[in-house]
């Protein structure tokens, strides 16, 4: 129709990258990295999610309008997480009595 068909090779390459990243994230989780365990796991998860968004969900060939909507979803999610968590994590900084 409006889209050129993507080669199977591209999809298989993305698939192999996703499997490789899954193995990496399990391997990294076995290491004792302290706080960096979380950072590494989330970085890999974001890369994997981006690959799925970009290639499998075809955002790379979608219209700007569709991309804007997808981006708005991520942006509003960021607002929710940032403001909710900055509230919870900063409680107690002033040394007042515990809130729960």
């Amino acid at each position: 129709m409006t889209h050129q068909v993507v080669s199977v090779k591209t999809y298989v390459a993305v698939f192999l990258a996703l499997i490789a990243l899954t193995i990496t994230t399990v391997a990294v989780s076995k290491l004792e990295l302290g706080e960096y365990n979380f950072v590494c796991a989330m970085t890999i998860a974001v890369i994997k999610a981006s690959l799925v968004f970009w290639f499998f969900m075809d955002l790379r060939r979608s219209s700007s309008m569709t991309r804007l909507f997808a981006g708005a979803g991520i942006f509003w999610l960021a607002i929710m997480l940032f403001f909710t968590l900055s509230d919870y994590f900063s409680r107690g900084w002033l040394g007042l009595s515990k809130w729960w």
Partner: protein
Amino acid sequence: MADSETAVAVHPPGLQHHFDDSAQQLESSTLGMWVFLVTEIMFFGGMFASYTIYRNLFPEAFASTSHYMNVTIGAINTGVLICSSLTMVLAVRAAQLGRKNAIILFLVLTLILGLVFLSLKYVEYHEKWEDHHIPGPGFQYADPRYFHQAQILFYLYFAMTGMHAIHMIVGAGLLCTLIGMAVRNRFSAEWYTPVEMIGLYWHFVDIVWIFLFPLLYLIGHTS
């Protein structure tokens, strides 16, 4: 517009009359599907936020409960879902090329992989049931210090993986519908919108798991 009669003659199958052409119709469907997926992002986002809050509120209990997560099944299920995303994208590709048998083959493979995921999820839930790790009156926990906190964390585990599993069950139902439509020759290279839209849904559910797996199974079991 001189050839408006020819335009009527080549009216593509599946094109509804309030759209100018197939491209505009597909664009509208895609945008609508993304709007729905954005609401899903916010929905799961709320659960991810509460998970993060409780993980930071009860770090010791979290380190304790994370030992009971079955990393092997979690990792296998991640692989199964990634495979199912590949077969789904190949089903969409087959639809674009108008290859009916390939569409059915890849949709059935996607469905089977989805059912494998759900079966492994059942095995995992059964383990939790045997260990009395279901929050509620029957809850038991080896470390009495974390009895209440562990219940909250297991509740979050069941809420998040359970909501994800419900999405998988809905996805499996949608795949059955698609297979039925494909068998009845409803799709062609000119019109295969449902395959593409349900593909988007399926990949989105995969993305949710891509975040659930490290957060629930991998973080914390070293500390």
